[in-house]
């Protein structure tokens, strides 16, 4: 069970978004892929789902956590499925107003001096809110392996091997 691991790891990868809103499920989908890989115990991939602002920050310990990687959809005017990397400085500082504008940006601005924070954004094609719809579009689906590689390079895991060989169920011991 999880308790045998550290609950506050050195590196936290948080996939944010709602899989019920089409491409908004990109973050959780990347985390699902990451959780299939054999990663060091110091790394924790969290499916933050809809609870990012409320839950993730209590699961970081600034004394131990030194890197936070957030994966989400971001509309930066690119081609659907295109990835972009942002620093906290790229995000406007929000202000505390309500539980919803208590979004990711304000706590990130507060945390940025305590740990290294990177945001990986994927240009979505179809965010279906307020209608619920399951499933990513093909373009965004195809960005998952690229996002995984990006995360692996950010956390310094590079075994020089194909991704599938890192998968727990397919790994050759």
């Amino acid at each position, binding site marked *: *069970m*999880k*308790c*045998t691991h550290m*609950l506050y790891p050195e590196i936290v990868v948080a996939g944010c*978004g*709602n*899989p*019920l*809103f089409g491409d*908004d499920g990109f973050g959780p989908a990347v985390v699902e892929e990451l959780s299939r890989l054999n990663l060091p115990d110091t790394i924790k991939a*969290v*499916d*933050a*789902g*809809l*609870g*990012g*602002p*409320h*839950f*993730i920050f*209590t*699961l970081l310990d600034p004394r131990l956590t030194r890197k936070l990687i957030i994966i*989400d*959809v*971001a*509309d*930066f*005017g690119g081609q659907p499925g295109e990835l*972009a990397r*942002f620093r906290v400085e*790229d*995000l*406007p500082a*929000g202000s*505390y*107003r*309500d*539980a*919803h504008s208590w*979004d*990711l*940006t304000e706590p990130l601005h507060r945390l940025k001096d305590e740990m290294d924070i990177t945001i990986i*954004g994927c240009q*979505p094609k179809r*965010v279906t*809110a*307020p*209608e*619920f*719809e*399951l499933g990513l579009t093909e373009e965004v689906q195809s960005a998952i392996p690229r996002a995984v590689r990006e995360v692996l390079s950010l956390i310094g895991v590079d075994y020089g091997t194909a991704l599938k060989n890192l998968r727990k169920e397919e790994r050759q011991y």
Partner: protein
Amino acid sequence: MSKIVEISPTTRHEGHSKLVLKVDDAGIIERGDWLSITPVRGVEKLAINKTMDQVPKIASRVCGICPIAHTLAGIECMEGSIRCEIPRDAKLLRIILQCANRLHSIALHNILILPDFYLPGTEQKINPFSPQEPVRTVAKRIQRIREIGQTIGEIAGGEAVHPSNPRVGGMYKPCTKQAVSKMYDLAKEGLVLAHEQMDLMIAIINNMRKRDWVEVGGKQVPLPKTLGYHSQGVMAAHPLYSSSNLDANPGWDPKRWTDVRPWDWYMGEGEVSLADPSYPIGGTSPVGTKVNPQMEACTGVPLYDGAPVEVGPRARLVTFKNFDMKGTWGQHTARQLEYTDCLYAMINALDEYNPSGRVLADPIPQGDGSLGWAANEAPRGTDVHLAKVKDGRVLYYEMLVPTTWNFPTCSRALTGAPWQVAEMVMRGYDPCVSCATHMIVIDEDKRVIAEKLIQ
């Protein structure tokens, strides 16, 4: 001559909602409508023909703050439909999960409401983010309580936010002895903190009850002693956890539930005729703004025995523990009293839990299409899910979430209060309105130009 004032969006709660208030010349609410303005649709349709294991996972994504309550209610209504009794040890893990969820939710609500309250003995409102003592110590304690709740939830539930361990028929994995002792240690630490936090919050609430006025937007607004009183009933299915159609004495009855459409309930078309730009966070809507709660409300109005009911901590204590405080202060007090209940219940469940016991029913029936329901007592009230499962597939699915029950009740409870304190009444319900999604919008140079909320 009545005037209409609109507060939109309401703040310091989860989700998007607004208040449309008809007030008299003195600013006292004659009729209030509190409604959800976030349209989130289609979960019932989405569930049809999915497997009974998939649907609770989908339900968990409906809300960012109660994924645990929705997962448990979703799973247990499936179990109710297929008539599946789960092993005792699985039930205990679910109780632990439930308590962990309630614990961190109450602590979050403390942060959201504290700015409405005064530090006892002073004329200073509380800013929970202030670096000054004594508030700093309180904020740290709230943070620690949240960490404890979430960590226990993560251990018992398998994941930090959307729990993956519960499943139809029980749980995927048992918790090891080591996990149990970790949760036990955290619960013991949490119990001390919860006692301290409960005492402090009750002192803060009692201090507020004695006040005659409150400052809102630079003005002194009278504070009625009957703030948030209403004459509607209360509804609670269980003092702590949940009830379902499998119980010998079910705590909820689907036959007593009816649903009416928003346009049968809310006010019709109108125009804002009173505005106050000094009202906190951007002022109220300007004069001339068109309002039409009948058409704007995004939720149906569920009734129990033909009338709206209050759900939540006060409803639980009134139903099961002879609690007799009313109104907003009663709701806040009841919520604080649940702090220690969560931890005692968690410790008792951990004591009883056997790490070597079975956590999965065998066999798991696949269902014959009969109706099952589960009423989970989520932090903010009774979360009822109903389902019909046949051959492992979902034929029918419905969610009646706590705040949907509270919308019409709270609307009635607004009557008689000055409009400036309407949000305080609303916050007493710890509302959790359906979630929208956030999206960051960035221009060609990959610089953020706005943060856009897609509704």
